[in-house]
């Protein structure tokens, strides 16, 4: 099944040659799609950056040249590893992390769960247990008596040098943290969590993280207000533009409330929506207005950007961003926060931050909810009249892992679709809590440095594209427009990139978009369709 069994000891190879090679021929075919060639890293990159894991990288950090620099990174790695096991430095996850490190029985039952492992043609290095096993063996060798005394007996014989450490860093960014594998584990071992903890080690101890997540991500969000770089004034300006666009589309002007004290709901979007898909926040405004909801946006720094990239790699940054979000809601005096169509923002605010802050910031005092149940409530209430015939085209639903598998919000979106679409929902196989990640989860959607985007489009997104093609197999005729609902900003971005890469629109007229966009498209009293399909 596996193409080539990469051995653990290869992680320590001093060669710059990748220990695993990803070629187009090895990738499982997608029916109806001609596999595009996978470009090799640019020659000038090879002299500067490290591609020794699999020939891909997002780390535009010059590889250290001197022994001293390499030593600093290896020492930092060890210091960080110790802190991962420390109940004070890692109180957030130490319990779950230790359990997963201690109790894996190496049965590999989880392997086929992984869309990246399967989508790569079963490359051994992407197996969910591969990176965990390396970390486990390193820990055993350097920190346990048994491993020190009998390293070969316990398999604790992986040498740690700069290359081992750097490849492990890269490897921690080959997992989408979708956690589908944990559903198959008979012991409940969470290999995705181990991947996340490796990322955290590098970020919190050495400050090494993808530039899109740390420097241009959480750092920028905390310093200017949004990971997009959007400042409060720009946000207000965009909202004003949005009001103009809404007026043009629906024939009447809606005033979008901003910083309205005492509103029932503070709606927080992923700020990327304002820039890349403004029709999505505009659709929320139209629908909320029609439903008579007392709501507001915030123009405070961070208040208009619900993303929290810390979820993927850094607990300190996670806590900082979450705290700002909750304080903004409290200061506005709203009754609750509703998170727009952004999966990881859902999980950050509702699930994880629940146990990060006490007292008045508890969920019981400052409720946080998904937009999906609210949208369902609006649809079911009859306050807004929908005409499903306006959505008379084949549709499928991509489930965001964060919203579905990791929060259990599965049904409201499906109930909404029944009420607003003329054709029955085409469920992907698998779907719901068993869905495959879009391939952009845990930050991959926005990671485009060096050739990482090539890896995402060809490997981690592959199973999703396969699913999309399969679900529309009987209506692939490009004269029929088809719609993939993705109620998550990062999922949308990933599907957008895959759409371009595989020619999904050009060849088959497969498009994507949010759920609320589709709801507004079905509003019976709008003078014209809300959805805009790409140019033919």
């Amino acid at each position: 099944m596996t193409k080539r069994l990469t051995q653990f000891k290869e992680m320590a190879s001093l060669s710059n040659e990748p220990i695993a090679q990803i070629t187009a021929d090895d990738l499982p075919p997608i029916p109806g799609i001609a596999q595009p060639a996978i470009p090799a890293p640019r020659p000038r990159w090879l002299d500067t950056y490290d591609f020794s894991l699999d020939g891909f990288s997002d780390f535009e950090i010059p590889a250290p040249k001197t022994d001293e620099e390499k030593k600093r990174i290896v020492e930092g790695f060890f210091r960080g590893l110790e802190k991962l096991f420390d109940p004070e430095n890692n109180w957030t996850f130490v319990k779950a992390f230790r359990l997963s490190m201690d109790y894996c029985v190496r049965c590999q039952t989880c392997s086929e769960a992984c869309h990246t492992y399967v989508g790569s043609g079963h490359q051994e290095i992407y197996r969910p247990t591969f990176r965990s096993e390396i970390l486990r063996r390193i820990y055993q060798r350097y920190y346990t008596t048994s491993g020190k005394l009998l390293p070969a007996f316990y398999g604790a014989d992986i040498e740690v040098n700069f290359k081992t450490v750097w490849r492990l860093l890269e490897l921690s960014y080959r997992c989408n943290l979708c956690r589908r594998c944990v559903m198959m584990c008979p012991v409940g071992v969470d290999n995705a969590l181990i991947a996340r903890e490796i990322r955290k080690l590098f970020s919190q101890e050495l400050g090494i993280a993808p530039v899109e997540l740390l420097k241009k991500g959480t750092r920028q969000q905390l310093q200017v207000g949004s990971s997009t770089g959007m400042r409060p004034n720009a946000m207000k300006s965009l909202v004003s533009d949005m009001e103009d666009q809404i007026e043009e589309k629906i024939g009447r002007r809606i005033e979008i409330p901003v910083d309205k004290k005492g509103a029932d709901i503070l709606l927080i979007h992923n700020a990327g929506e304002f820039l890349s898909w403004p029709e999505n926040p505009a659709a929320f405004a139209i629908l909320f207005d029609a439903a008579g909801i007392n709501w507001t946006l915030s123009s405070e720094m961070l208040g208009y950007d619900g993303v929290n990239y810390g979820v993927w790699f850094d607990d300190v940054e996670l806590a900082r961003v979450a705290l700002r979000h909750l304080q903004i809601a409290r200061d506005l005096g709203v009754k609750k926060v509703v998170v727009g169509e952004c999966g990881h923002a859902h999980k950050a605010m509702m699930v994880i931050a629940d146990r990060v802050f006490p007292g008045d910031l508890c969920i019981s005092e400052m409720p946080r909810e998904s937009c999906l149940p609210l949208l369902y409530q609006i649809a079911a209430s009859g306050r807004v009249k929908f005409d499903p015939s306006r959505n008379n085209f084949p549709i499928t639903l991509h489930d965001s892992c964060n919203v579905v598998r990791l929060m259990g919000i599965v049904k409201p979106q499906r109930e909404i679709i029944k009420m607003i679409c003329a054709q029955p929902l085409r469920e992907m196989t698998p779907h719901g809590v068993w869905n495959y990640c879009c391939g952009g989860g845990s930050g991959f959607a926005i990671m485009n440095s060096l050739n990482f985007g090539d890896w995402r489009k060809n490997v981690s997104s592959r199973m999703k594209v396969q699913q999309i093609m399969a679900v529309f197999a009987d209506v692939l005729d490009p004269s029929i427009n088809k719609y993939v609902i993705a109620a998550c900003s990062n999922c949308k971005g990933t599907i957008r990139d895959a759409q371009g890469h595989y020619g999904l629109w050009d060849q088959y007229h497969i498009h994507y978009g949010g759920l609320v966009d589709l709801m507004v498209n079905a509003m019976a009293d709008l003078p014209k369709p809300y959805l805009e399909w790409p140019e033919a």
Partner: protein
Amino acid sequence: MAFEWFMIVMGWLSLGAFLAVATYKITRVTAQPLNVRWEVYPVPHESKARREYGGSYMEEVDWAAKATHPSRLPGLLEIAKEVVYLKRVREFNQYGLWGISLAMHWGLYLGLATIGLAVIETLLGVTFGLTPLVAGVAFTLGAVGSLAIIAKRLTNAELGLYTVPADLFNLGWVAALFILGIIGGLMDTTFAGYRAYVASVLTFKPVPVPPIVLIHFLVLELFFIYMPFTKIIHYIGKYFTFEQTLWDDAFKTKGSAADNKVLQQLGYPVTWNAPHIVPGKTWLEQAQATGLEEGAQK
């Protein structure tokens, strides 16, 4: 007679050592800080309708205002399914491990039942006559299962990559237990010697016991002492991974025990070293610092 006394001591020593180390392991896990929520759906204690498709209370509007008091029983039953028939291994049987793993596990369960039976018979002073049957099934299943797993791990390259000598040693020990049990059963067909040894441990009265039975028990008792130090004790970890992490969906309320615990944990010092970590701060102070303050970043 000295060896018989030694074996009586070993019987109690192995039980005591097992309980002590297992308790230590459990205590070590329970003493860990309160984990942030990190659940995965479906969670077993949701309503039946929601459980079927993996839904949660978060599918409702205003869920935080609705009290939830889920029973832990469904979660324990779900774990029991893993124990009884290795549910997930059966469903996702990637490497054909389910049947042979089930055989080994049931060999262990019935092996323990055999001892339990002998204990009950001794305490009640009766003989049910079931021991040869239960033991025969246990030892056969266990031996076949453990040897087949060893063979599978040695012959399948992918499993082999993840198999270290210690795994084979552990499996070999388990296989040896069952094989010795089979040999003992063949030489002591009524299991009178087996029961006599168990009775001698319970009553502190050394009696002559066939050497093969004593060797079987010696290997078993050493295994009991060794096991808690290995991942063979994963059945203890399983409760915590599932019930206290993957299915722990309880949201926090102000002033609750969990709330107080989080408050306490926010006071822990942070000694991570990255440039965006402010030195000398607690977790709460870190969260309050954005790194915007002059000089805050190293």
